[in-house]
Structure formats: structure tokens, C-alpha cells
């Protein structure tokens, strides 16, 4: 059984996560979401559950005014990053005290999603202000602004406060790994340098954010760079807990990610900052899909009768109780029904728990899974033309990204 932890990425319908944890012992803990859980509701969670869970403070947009979130009072009267900048020390204190005073496993330093901010002239004004406030502006660069804002607005106030309190809890820092970081080596290096130099932080809560047309990430450069990022974090003895991620997580484990998430709806399996802003978030329901551990893809339900007519469904889908429920005669497929998600949580967790602990063996194991997925898609192509969101187009890109990453690491070892 692998030593990779699996956390339930809680959100709307987190009761399904709780049920699957209670009934089937799936998941090692919970990533608690203040957007979906008021302070009062959270206070009813047992210490036993809290002690293997952590809390995501969700500062991403700084303007989340929904009732559940407001009950925590972290960002009261904060309308902009200016307000935040002025109050950052008090905000850090409130946020850390809250987490430290309950039985949570980690203290989480949040992040701001700088992509959600309007990078206009006033933003540069703020940057100049922060720079002049630094006791050594000579060592403050004008490039990699995001990383510098991250250092000054997030890491400094939070770490300074954590240093003053007595706590045995490990500290996670949240980082969004986005397309810019994958493409811009200077930004990539500066984030790594900042985070690995800090002795207060013992782990990273890492959120992959890749803009894409289809549901699976299939950007080889993005995947290779995030794998390299995870590998370097691990080389620096940092835990890496992936958040808001779908089945791509299996790739991140090859680089040594220590924990991966399982989430119910798609918006919990993909990071999107807009979900945490006050704007109306487009939560339009997708077509129902069901996860195949053999194909390493979510397959739209309409294909299942075709597979059944030509082949054996059990070759492609784990036969747990929830899958069987979807096969009952009168089952009415709908994205809001729990069966697909519960099936996924069990099936994907079992897949992850089977991964070898040795990273060389894990690479070979995952590569073999991908090869088998490719073969399975080839078999199915005799009678199915999959749409882009159910197809296996991502498989060879995943294999390539893993190979590029693995060979780079092997070369470095030599």
C-alpha cells in the first residue's frame, strides 16, 4: 500500500466525502473549505477528524463575501489588495490563530491569486510602496513581481506571526502553479528559491492551474515543469500536498507528491480562482461521466451501453457498489447524483494506494498503466468514436511528460 495520503477536497456536497470516509474508510483526511462550511458547522467536526485534516483559508480573490466565508471574519472590510496590504499583519494573526486553536493537522498560509487582480498602474504603485518599505530595497527586484508580492504580502506577515506563537503544527504554504510559472523560468526559479529558503514552512499546498480547452491537462511543458517543481520541493524535504486536481494527480505522485486530493464536482478537481470571487461563478452542470481506472479518463455515460454491447464493462470500470447502482435498469444519469463521484473516490483511491513507494518503480508502474490505457482505448476504437473529453488523447502526452521528466532527473543523478 502506498504512503501517499489522499485528502477529500471538500466543497458543496462534502457530506458525500464524509459518507465515503465513514463507510469505506476512503481518504486520510479533509481539506476544509470555508466557502462551503460556516465556522459553526466546522466547529461541530470532531477533533479526531480535524487532527488529520487542514483548512484552506481561500484568500485567492480577497473579495469573497458569501455568508459561510464571512463567518470566519478573516477579510472583514477588505475591498482591495491595498486594504489587505495595510491590514496584513492583523489578518495573518486572525487566520493563524483560528487554525492553531482547533485540532487541525497543519497551519496553512494562504495565497492571493495575483492573476485575478488587475495588473494596472495602481498595482505598480502598491509594488513601489512595498519596495520602499523593505529594509534593503537594493535586494528587491523589479522582475518576478508576483513572487515579490507573494513574499511581502503573504509569507513575511504569516511567517513573522507564526514565529511568535507556540505551536507544534507543521506549516503549509499555498502556491498556485500556473501556466506563467511553467513558461517563465525566472519566475519558476524565484518561487522555488523563496519557498525552499524558508525554514518555517514544512510543506506546500500546491494548486495546478492550466488553461485548457478539454477536461484533461495535456500540455506537455506544463506537466513536465510542475513535475520538476514538485521534485525540487521534495529534494528540499518539503511535503507536497496537491489541491484542486483531478486524475492528473497520479502523474504528480511520480515526482514524489506526498498527498493528492479527491473531490466531488469538477470545480473541486480543478483550480479556478473565479470560484472564490464574488462574481457569479458559472457552475453549469456537465454531462455525467464515470471514472475508468483502466482508461485513466472520465467517460461520458452515453458510451457505456455501447461498451456493454461490444465488450465487458468490468474490464474498464471497477465494480464497486456505486458503479453497480449506475447499471440498474431505471438509473437516471445526472451530474448531481452521488454515484459517479462515490465510485470515483473509491476507484481512484484504490489505484493510488496500489502505487509503489519507490519512485523509480512508481514511474515504471504509472507508465505501464498509461500504456495499458492506450491499449484499452485502441480496443474500444473498434466500435466507439470518443468525444474529446472522454477520449484517450491525453495518454501519450502524459507518457511523454513523464518520460521527459524522468530522464532529466536520471541525467542529474549521473
Amino acid at each position, binding site marked *: 500500500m502506498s504512503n501517499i495520503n489522499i485528502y477529500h477536497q471538500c466543497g458543496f456536497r462534502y457530506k458525500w466525502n464524509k459518507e465515503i470516509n465513514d463507510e469505506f474508510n476512503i481518504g486520510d483526511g479533509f481539506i476544509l473549505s470555508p466557502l462551503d462550511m460556516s465556522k459553526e458547522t466546522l466547529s461541530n467536526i470532531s477533533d479526531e477528524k480535524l487532527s488529520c485534516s487542514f483548512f484552506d483559508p481561500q484568500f485567492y480573490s480577497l473579495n469573497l463575501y458569501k455568508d459561510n466565508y464571512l463567518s470566519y471574519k478573516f477579510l472583514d472590510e477588505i475591498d482591495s489588495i491595498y486594504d489587505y496590504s495595510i491590514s496584513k499583519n492583523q489578518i495573518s494573526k486572525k487566520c493563524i490563530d483560528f487554525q492553531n486553536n482547533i485540532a487541525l493537522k497543519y497551519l496553512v498560509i494562504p495565497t492571493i491569486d495575483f492573476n485575478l487582480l488587475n495588473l494596472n498602474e495602481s498595482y505598480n504603485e502598491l509594488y513601489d510602496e512595498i519596495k520602499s518599505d523593505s*529594509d534593503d530595497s537594493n535586494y528587491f527586484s523589479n522582475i518576478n513581481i508576483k513572487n515579490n508580492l507573494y513574499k511581502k504580502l503573504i509569507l513575511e506577515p504569516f511567517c513573522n506571526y507564526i514565529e511568535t506563537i507556540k505551536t507544534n503544527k507543521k506549516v503549509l504554504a499555498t502556491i498556485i502553479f500556473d501556466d506563467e510559472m511553467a513558461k517563465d523560468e525566472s519566475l519558476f*526559479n524565484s518561487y522555488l*528559491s523563496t519557498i525552499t529558503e524558508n*525554514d518555517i514552512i514544512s510543506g506546500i499546498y500546491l494548486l495546478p492551474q492550466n488553461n485548457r480547452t478539454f477536461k484533461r491537462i495535456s500540455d506537455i511543458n506544463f506537466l513536465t515543469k510542475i513535475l520538476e517543481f514538485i521534485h525540487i520541493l521534495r529534494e528540499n524535504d518539503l511535503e507536497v500536498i496537491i489541491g484542486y486536481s483531478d486524475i492528473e494527480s497520479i502523474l504528480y505522485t511520480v515526482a514524489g507528491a506526498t498527498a493528492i486530493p479527491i473531490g466531488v464536482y469538477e470545480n473541486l478537481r480543478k483550480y479556478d480562482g473565479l470560484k472564490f470571487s464574488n462574481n457569479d461563478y458559472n457552475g453549469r452542470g456537465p454531462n455525467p461521466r464515470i471514472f475508468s481506472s483502466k482508461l485513466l479518463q472520465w467517460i461520458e455515460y452515453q458510451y457505456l451501453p455501447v461498451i456493454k454491447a461490444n465488450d465487458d464493462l468490468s474490464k474498464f470500470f471497477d465494480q464497486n457498489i456505486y458503479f453497480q447502482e449506475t447499471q440498474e435498469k431505471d438509473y437516471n444519469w445526472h451530474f448531481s447524483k452521488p454515484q459517479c463521484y462515490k465510485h470515483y473516490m473509491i476507484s481512484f483511491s484504490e489505484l493510488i494506494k496500489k502505487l509503489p513507494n519507490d519512485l523509480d518503480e512508481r514511474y515504471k508502474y504509472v507508465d505501464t498503466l498509461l500504456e495499458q490505457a492506450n491499449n484499452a482505448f485502441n480496443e474500444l476504437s473498434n466500435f466507439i468514436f470518443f468525444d474529446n473529453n472522454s477520449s484517450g488523447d491525453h495518454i501519450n502526452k502524459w507518457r511523454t511528460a513523464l518520460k521527459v521528466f524522468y530522464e532529466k532527473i536520471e541525467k542529474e543523478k549521473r
Partner: protein
Amino acid sequence: MNDEIIKEFPNSGQKIVSLVNNSKFGKCIKKVQKNMEYISRINKEINIQKELDCIYYPKVFFANITEQNCLIYEEFIDGKDLTNYIGKDKIYYNNEIACINLLKELVIGLEFVWSKNVVHRDIKPANIIIRKSNNKPVILDLGIAKNLDSSTVTEGGMWGTKGYSSPEQRFNNRDLFGKRSDMFSLGIVIYELFFGEIPFKNDYELAFNSCDFNKNDLQPSEKFKKIISKMLEKQPFKRYKNSTAILKEIDDYLGGD
């Protein structure tokens, strides 16, 4: 306070350093410098040095730093700096154990300031004296010395000395600068003591070459090469994360031999 000058050292920029016999502190080093910049950082570093009760740094007896003027009296260290220990006939040449033991002392010494989020910025043989009385290294020039001294400022304005500066200092990558920049310079110093010369002769080599561990036909052990090459990684995040990590490796080395 009255001073009797015993010896004046060569001027360096606007800095005047002399060995004096002071009426209050006795035999000590006096440093005078004009037109100060970065006052808050320098004051922070001097205050840290004043508070350090540590054999690895000279004691600061007195410091008065303003924008116009700086006056410091600090302990005189009787001994020779490491430039006197470089070469084939010296104790550290081709002597892993001596080099690693010195490295251990210097890492422990630097941890005193690293733990206070201070980076020395100019680790080099001339800034490390071996104290005559106990053969322990003493690290000089924390804080004040780097200001306005043109020989230690790179083109981009970051402090450091060519040949010893990390790539991030030399190429002005401010976002990457930190404690591990000192670790790189320390790796250079140890390499130079062992091989008799620095590993990277120019900026091109610093940027692109990896270390030659067969220089002068010497054959250091794999463990020694591993420690030095990790300290000399081009990217700071590939070096040792902190003093704990490197000390663990050093202790493994010393315990295993």
C-alpha cells in the same frame, strides 16, 4: 576615547581600518567610513554582531552609524587569514579531513547570522582568520565592510567578490539571493583550499561549467565531491536547504571515515 595607532591597513574605498590601542578597549580594530548607505540594514547587522557572544566573529565593542559617518571598534583577532593557507605546501591542500572540519566550523559560525536572516554576502579567504590561540576560524566583515567598497560590489550593485560570489550575486539575480549564496561562496573557499585554486575563473565558467574535481591530479573521495558539488550548484534551491542539512552530511562524512 583616545587611540594610539599601531598600524594602518591599506585604504579600501572610503573605509579606513587601523589597529589601535584604545584607552577604553585596549588593542582593537578601528573602522571609520563616511557617506553611509543602507543604514537600517547595516545597523541591524551590527546590532546582531554586538549581541553575538560567539567565537566565530570578532566582538564589537562600540558602533555608531549615521548617514554621514560610521565608527566601529571591534576585537583584534591575532592570526592569519585563509589567503595564507592556500597552496600545495599548506595544511588544507589535498586534505579532506582538514577541509571538512573547517567547513563544519564555518557553517556553525554562519548559522549564527543565517538564523537571524542575515546574509554575510562576501565570504572569501580574506574574510576568514584562523585565530592563533585556538586555531578556530573567525568570520570578518559582517555588515559594514561591504558598503561603498568598490572592490566588493558587482556590476549590478550586489555585494560580493569576483571568484567567490554565487551566480545569483554575480549576475544580479536578486530574487534568488539568500543564505545559500553564502553557502556557494563557502564551497568555493573550501574547494580552493583543497585544490589550491578556485573552480570558476571567469563569469562564463561560473555560469556554465560544473566543478572539475580532478584538478591538479587530485582524487578526492565521492563523499567529499558530493558535499562540495551540492554547495556549488548554480541554482540556490539545489544547494543544501540550510545549515542543518549540510551539517548532517558533514557528520555522516566525518563519522564514516
